[in-house]
């Protein structure tokens, strides 16, 4: 008789350890589909822009202030939240709380500045398809920033309640990954709406 | 059998073109359908004039003339002469055509 293959593993982790867990895969899936969504938004912008006569872009020279500092702020927040996650990994709760707290503040400032940007734009939501795309894309991003802020607040609270340990921290890792995503997407949005007009797109 | 079916269909088609009822229906579809409902003519769903569904049972036509074959033929040919100002226009229908139409209409007796 043939030999039976029998999986006889030794010690196995029970539940997620570190970032190794189903939840992390789940958030990666979420990010993949959301990234596709932003891809289609930007595709809409480039497609409409490429088929419209010059003048379609209502602000051919987008102001770099406060957009550039704001972008830098958001990107920097990715570093801070990473530092916060390191705090959890090392069991330093204070560092984690500080990291998540500062990231939350940076994100909130980013959101506030972005709302200010909306208010000073010389065009409205429905002025033409350029303005609609600008506001829709940035609003989609804003929705993700707000979701990210809620996640950061939850992480802050749960950390304060001492829910996490260096091993049991998948929620933290997944939340931080989401925040990185929010920041990376902004780079594409910013490049598209603020930089490509200077590179000659649509003008 | 296989050869019979097309033959039969051909015969049927030939019948149709000589059938006075078919000719009347074609005329009605072309000239009358836009204003009247006429049973037997699918496109005749007009809502301008009265339905002709049971015109064979009607006593008078155009509210004025006895409903007989001659009057009906005359009415189809020259409504404006019989009743000036009627909404029904002169349509340039010839006597044989009007006769065909009238004969068809006079078979319609089901409301």
């Amino acid at each position, binding site marked *: *008789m*043939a*030999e*039976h*293959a*029998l*999986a*006889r*593993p*030794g*010690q*196995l*982790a*029970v*539940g*997620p*350890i570190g970032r*190794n*867990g*189903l939840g992390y*895969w*789940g958030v990666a*899936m*979420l990010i*993949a*589909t*959301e990234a*596709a*969504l932003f*891809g*289609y938004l930007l*595709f*809409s912008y480039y*497609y*409409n822009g490429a*088929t*419209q006569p010059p003048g*379609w872009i209502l602000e051919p020279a987008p102001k770099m202030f406060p957009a550039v500092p704001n972008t830098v702020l958001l990107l920097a927040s990715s570093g801070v939240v990473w530092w916060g996650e390191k705090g959890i990994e090392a*069991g330093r709760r204070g560092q984690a709380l500080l990291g998540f707290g500062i990231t939350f503040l940076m994100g909130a400032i980013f959101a506030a500045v972005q709302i200010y940007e909306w208010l000073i734009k010389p065009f409205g*939501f*429905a002025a*033409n*398809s*350029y303005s*609609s795309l600008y506001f*829709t894309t940035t609003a989609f991003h804003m929705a993700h920033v707000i979701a990210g802020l*809620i996640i950061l607040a*939850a992480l802050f609270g*749960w950390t304060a309640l*001492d*829910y*996490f*340990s*260096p*091993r*049991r921290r998948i*929620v933290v890792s997944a939340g931080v990954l989401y925040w990185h995503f929010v920041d990376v997407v902004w780079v594409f949005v910013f490049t598209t709406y603020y930089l490509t007009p200077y590179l000659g797109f649509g003008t | 059998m296989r050869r019979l079916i097309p033959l039969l269909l051909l015969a049927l088609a030939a019948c149709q073109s000589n059938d006075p009822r078919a000719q009347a229906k074609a005329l009605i579809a072309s000239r009358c359908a836009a204003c009247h409902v006429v049973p037997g003519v*699918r*496109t005749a*769903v007009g809502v301008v004039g009265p339905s002709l569904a049971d015109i064979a049972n009607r006593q008078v036509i155009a509210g004025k003339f006895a409903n007989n074959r001659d009057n009906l033929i005359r009415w189809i040919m020259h409504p404006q002469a019989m009743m000036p100002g009627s909404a029904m226009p002169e349509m340039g229908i010839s006597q044989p055509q009007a006769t065909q139409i009238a004969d068809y209409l006079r078979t319609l007796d089901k409301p």
Partner: protein
Amino acid sequence: MRQPAYRTPRIGESTPELRARLHAIWETAPGWRGWLSTVDHKEIGLRYIVTAFILLAVGGVEALVIRLQLAGPDLHLLTPEQYNQFFSTHGMTMIFLYALPILSGFSNYLWPLVLGSRDMAFPRLNAFSYWVYLAASIFLYSGFVIGAGPNDGWFNYVPFAEKDYNPGINEDVYALGMVLLGISTTVGAANFIVTAFKMRAPGMSINRLPILVWGTLTANVANLLVVPAVSLAFFLLWLDRQFGTGFYQPSAGGQPLLWQHLFWIFGHPWVYAIVLPAMGMVSDGLPVFCRRPLVGYSLVALGTVATMILGFGVWVHHMFATGLPALSLSFFSGASIIITFPSAIAVFAWLATIWTGRPVITTAFLFFASMILLFVIGGVSGFMTASVPVDWQLTDTYFVVAHIHYVLIGINVFPVVGATYFWFPKMTGRFLDERLGRWNFWTMFVGFNLGFLPMHLTGLLGMPRRVWTYPEGMGWDTLNLITSIGSFVFAIGVLIFFYNCWKSYRSGAPAGANPWDAPTLEWSIPSPPPPYNFAVIPTLASRHPLWEDRLDESEARSSLDRGMTLDEGKETIITTAMDAEPDRIVEMPEDSYAPLLLTIGLAVLFAGLLVKLWLVAGLGGVGCLAALLLWLWPRQEMRERSPEPRKIGEPAHG
């Protein structure tokens, strides 16, 4: 009770005590509480299947009304507006509410069973996916029942769907409903992908996956990436309609063709998404009745993946008549002809399986085998439309209607009905009646071909699509009458199928664990399966664990009766993505109301958006947030306040 971070799983036999213990752990609470909160993939899968079949029946009745209206020239059963709502709702129902959900239902039910797992990766997400599907179906139908159904076809081209030309609420319902449905599809896709990579029994390496898994996996990778395109398209349409934005309005610097690009970037992969899992059903089911393994397993699996990859690149062949430059016409035409190759692999593999096997004729076999022919007919008509000059004549005629029905009915409905005959014994413990089955098959097969084969000719003789009536003398009268008769014969066949399901569910012949002598894991457990699926986690040594002794594919034998018991909680095993080595023990979530609550929150949100009661929408949004926090709150038993004293080497990562 707090879980230790590491544990050596106990190896044991499947004993009555173990089964009783697992039953107590995994069983869903009885009564309505359990009904509303269950996360059991089998229960959810069955709900998907039943709901999708009900919607198939509803969409079928709509089709019959359409066929009555078109049975002869100049008929007036429906007004033009009613006709337009009927055909649009029919398309929406069949394509979005039946074709994918039925496959999701089967995959939901079958995946953990064929993969040797105790549940899907995200059971609560699974429940959520079903609830949102149900909510979206009701939402989408709410317009139709008040006489404001979608009236611009399932493809919903702008600008006709814009408020200027379509002022009613019809398109608002459709747009928002489709965004809602997109959520269900997307979370379902994420669940399938993670399940395929992580939730397999040890030894179920990537080259041992059943083709059904390959099909559903590729389909859902596509869904994950393309559903956002259609959700965005419908959302932008809704913005255009509500706030006067101009995404698709040339007068506002918008582009009507943007809609078509977004729609078909989604729509074309979607066509593959609703056939690849069904092709997988045939690839797995047909060999059982041919008494041999599938010919060319690896090629078929590769062909499945290749079809989908190429499928991303051919969306423009739905837009050949939109005035594109010749260069892009040639490119997309060429790509559309080339895509025939990977599909052809499956056809020859099936044929070879029949020829080199010893086919046994059951109803399931008849459905699977006939599908091969219908697949080819639907394929070659698609091949004709891939040639641009020919397509300029064919497109938007009934030829394309015939094509899409050969694809959807031939490659989706026939395999699905066959799959029902095949897996019904597993799901219910009873056979479907074979005698009724023959009647069922032959009425469906004859009715379908009687209805839709002549329709190719109707199209070649120039009948345009989506017309509420046609005049006499166009040469289409007889053909349309035949099609209408065929559609009713087909409908009788479907009715026999439903009757057979109902009758056999109540009094069918009892079926054992493996009534067909099939080779895969799901047939190694009782019919219907217990709540925990596998009392001990099986270990695989080949693709055909139940045929090993007879096929002698390899030296080793799978271990089905002895394995990890994992009975210290609601546990199952996670394995590595490629080789399926044991990686971690995972604690599955208990039944939960959170998915239902989140769905209710979403439904309120979307209803609020539809009727423009922003406060209601806001309340719905807050409800969603609350449900999400409840859902995601870290679980007590998974916490660990202080690091454990013992130091243990890092486990394998996957």
